[in-house]
């Protein structure tokens, strides 16, 4: 990972007015239920999936379409470093917002006289970190495949297609299709629930392997796609 790239990505993501607006929307909307029912705990905050999507959208594709990637990769930066830096920055940015969200929620709870479940906060943050890393990995792959914000379109397309497949499987009673579609849906939103661990038990090894393999596969494929990609406007015409 390249620290300069990570910091630049974070700055880029947090200086886009539209992105800030979306982040504010997804970041602070969950505060309403906390305000209404402060004793409900941190579960009301929900997960950080849409926050991660908002920060990840176009993480590589926008560099591809704008042409800034050429200048960047003319520097001593490998394409793998570039992919990992973008991934790390998006995950870190998402986690940072989640931490802020959690702190604000805790403040609201305190001000409204409700006890702050710090154990719940720790679980929320741990799960959020894993979901942010997973979602950023999926988006890194999709963004390496599509220019601009095409990664969001691809995600939507895959999501709809898999759901249609799942419905077909259910209609035809094809268990294998239903299971396959379910796995694919889980791969689109890689998460690992650490609740068993926080409650003193083990986390299912299958869930751990499944999560890690999805993240690794997505990042690996993103690097392969980027390494194979030719970077010159000449390739489109000259």
């Amino acid at each position, binding site marked *: 990972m*390249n620290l*300069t*790239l990570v910091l*630049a990505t974070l*700055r*880029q993501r947090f*200086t*886009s007015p539209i992105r800030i607006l979306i982040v504010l929307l997804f970041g602070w909307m969950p505060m309403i239920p906390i305000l209404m029912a402060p004793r409900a705990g941190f579960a009301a905050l929900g997960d950080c999936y849409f926050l991660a999507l908002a920060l990840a959208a176009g993480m590589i594709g926008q560099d591809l379409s*704008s*042409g*800034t990637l*050429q*200048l*960047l*990769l*003319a*520097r*001593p*930066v*490998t394409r793998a470093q570039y992919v990992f830096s973008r991934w790390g920055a998006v995950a870190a940015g998402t986690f940072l917002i989640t931490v802020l969200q959690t702190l604000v929620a805790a403040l609201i709870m305190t001000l409204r006289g409700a006890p702050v479940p710090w154990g719940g906060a720790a679980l929320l943050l741990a799960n959020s970190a894993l979901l942010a890393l997973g979602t950023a990995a999926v988006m890194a792959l999709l963004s390496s495949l599509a220019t601009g914000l095409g990664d969001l379109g691809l995600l939507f397309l895959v999501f709809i297609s898999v759901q249609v497949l799942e419905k077909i499987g259910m209609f035809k009673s094809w268990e294998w299709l239903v299971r396959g579609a379910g796995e694919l849906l889980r791969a689109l939103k890689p998460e690992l629930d650490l609740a068993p661990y926080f409650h003193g038990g083990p986390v299912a090894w299958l869930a751990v392997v499944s999560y890690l393999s999805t993240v690794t596969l997505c990042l690996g494929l993103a690097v392969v796609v980027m390494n194979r990609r*030719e*970077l*010159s*406007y*000449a*390739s489109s*015409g*000259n």
Partner: protein
Amino acid sequence: MDGIRIESLTKTYRAGQVRALDGVSLEIAPGEVFGIIGPNGAGKTTLLGCLLGFLRPDSGRVSIAGREPDDLAIRAVSGYLPERLTLDRWMTGLDFLAYHHALARLPVAGRAAAVQTALTRVGLDPEAAHRSIRRYSRGMLQRLGLAQALLGRPRYVFLDEPASGVDPAGVVLFRRLLDEVRADGTTVVLNSHQLDQVERVCDRVAFVKQGRIEALETLHAGAAMARVLRVRGPAGTIGEAVPRAALELAAQRAGAELREVSPPLARFAVPDDAGAVRLVQALVAAGVPVAEVTPEEGRLERLFLEDAPPGGPA
């Protein structure tokens, strides 16, 4: 060798239907300022893309100082200015240069000073440097792009249409910068349509057409003989009654160079306008009947005008 070596480079697009480069071979010496010219679609940008390691050739090889073009050690000592300059528009000019300074792995200690020097070097207003790149004019963008390409005094500089969109003062500045870069011993590859600029700054030029190097011209840029004059005499004089030796002697006295005698014409190279005046005076003093003196169009211009350019395939 520390220079650039291109061996039998072939590159096609659309599953081989479009042949952008067709067996290009070339050697660029260390410290040389090398120009690439040619009509649109000739393969110039593809060649530059292969030199930068952005494009994978179908066959052939590019090596820079004996390494692959995308070797990080080469990239650490290279600068690049693309033609379609799209910078990170959310940054200020200062941020942008500091960012590229960091990406180039240049020392943090001297970063602020290096960035300021780079800005001054390209004549970018210090106030503008604090502004968002989004608000830069085309010329300012080009200057900023040039500043980032020259950060850290690179050993190899690749410039794709560096003077496009730049005002006349910027063009003069660009030439001065290239002189400085040349004095540093930097190897420069310049892709440009501005033939007069190329003719002024480059040591050698490759004329690329349909993916091949059609001609390789040595220009001696910056050397004494920058212009060529055609001197015509009445029939039976130049090259006949007036022998080549007499023309050579007159040229020598005027500090000019006799290039070619083709009765009734003789071609002389002169350094500048004053040299042209001295040549005409020397010819008249030597008794050469001068009927007409015309400046020759640029040598590179001729390459574009002639179907079969002189010099032959490289």
